[in-house]
């Protein structure tokens, strides 16, 4: 059973969003990293890039598969987790902590996001 922290919000494409002051931190969920398997490649945007909600902001790849990363909220990228450039392992081992992907200043527009309970139900529905 994958971990779903109660204090985050979640997208249907398995990204999480944490509000920190007037910024948000974005990553992929424990479920997403489990499905992908060992992450071996990551493409993140440049600081300053802007994205609409639902727009692809990067790519994440495992041995088996390539997957787009979708912005759960719109906004401007203020930081990327550059430590992941050479070692993507934290995305697998600590997806909600050291495996965070980008920090954004939100525009106010966002995808339809779920709370932890709704995301858990959503995952349950997908496992059949």
């Amino acid at each position: 059973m994958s971990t779903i922290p109660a204090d985050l919000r979640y997208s249907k494409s398995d990204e999480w969003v944490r509000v920190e002051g007037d910024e948000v931190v974005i990553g992929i969920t424990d479920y997403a990293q489990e499905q992908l398997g060992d992450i071996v490649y990551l493409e993140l945007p440049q600081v300053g890039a802007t994205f609409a909600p639902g727009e692809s902001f990067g790519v994440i790849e495992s041995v088996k598969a390539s997957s787009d990363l979708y912005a759960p909220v719109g906004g401007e990228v203020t930081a990327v987790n550059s430590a992941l450039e050479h070692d993507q392992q934290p995305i697998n081992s600590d997806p909600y902590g050291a495996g965070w992907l980008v920090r954004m200043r939100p525009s106010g527009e966002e995808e339809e996001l779920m709370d932890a309970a709704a995301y858990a139900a959503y995952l349950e529905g997908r496992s059949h």
Partner: protein
Amino acid sequence: MLKRTPLFEAHRAAGARMVEFGGWEMPVQYSGIIEEHHAVRQGAGLFDISHMGRFMVRGPHASAFLQHVVTCDVTAIPIGQSNYGLLCKPDGGIVDDIFIYHVPDEFLVVVNAANRDKDWAWLQNHARGFDVELEDRSDRWAMLAFQGPNAEALLVHAEDAETSELGNLPFHGVALTSMFGVNVLIARTGYTGEDGFELFFDAPNAEMIWARLLALGAPGSVKPCGLGARDSLRFEPCLALYGHEISETINPYEARLGWVVKFDKGDFVGRETLAAIKARGPARRLAGFEMVGRGIARSDYPVHALSGERVGHVTSGMPAPTLGKPLGIALVPTALSAEGSEFDVIIREKPVRARVMKMPFYKPRYKKA
């Protein structure tokens, strides 16, 4: 409804992640593809490959019939040996790649899971005029692959005392033995580029044998592996995967499998066309490549010449775990297939430079006498 092997419940109970493959619900990974991959390169891994098709061919014309439908020389396979072969269409396209095991009084033919029905029909249709009996043993038998440099040393402990075939089994050898009190057909074959064995036995014994094999040696000596590692392990030594490097629209010369086509043996399905293709040389063929630019090439990504023209596609591509870098195989014009040639792989609509390198990427470490 997806088909399941006799080990389906065991896989699920062990926490394997199950995926669809060729109509089957199979484990793609247990602990992780990279970990399983390294276990097989460095130690030993166990795969459930019961989804593969297993046909028996017997009767007075068994050898002549196989000689007629496959490209390799079946008469050159003595009892107790096996060989790789291709079923080709009259136009040279590959129906399937198969393994033929010669056991006393019959041949065992192992075919790809996704091609089971197609191959069965193909063999039946070509059996007219031959005094042969075909029997589909796919559901009656389980099939496991026990692979890796430690496979032999571990597996000898599975063999019952009164039989000891395994240590003397040559490369591609096949013999009947007994393991844990069960009759097992064992062959020194595999699909990983390592020394190793493939085991065939009655399906009701599958859970017992699977569990006993995993328990061989010190704890953790034998790692259960899924189809993810099976794919990455076959990719590095550039072993063809049906539907990728080979298909009905790819001929053996394009797939660099000319060595599997033997003209000396007499007539066979596809011979005429294959001889013509060989004489003029294939217009396109497989090329192994490494990425010059940053990115991972994946199956079906387009390949463009440096002029920008689309000239081919990627047949397989992934970050190769043993070599530690993304590699790929592409079907490209023959002129572009030479070592050092460069082309672009289109990754998410952007051209990324790639350079042709020598295949195989990983030199197989078979135990040959």
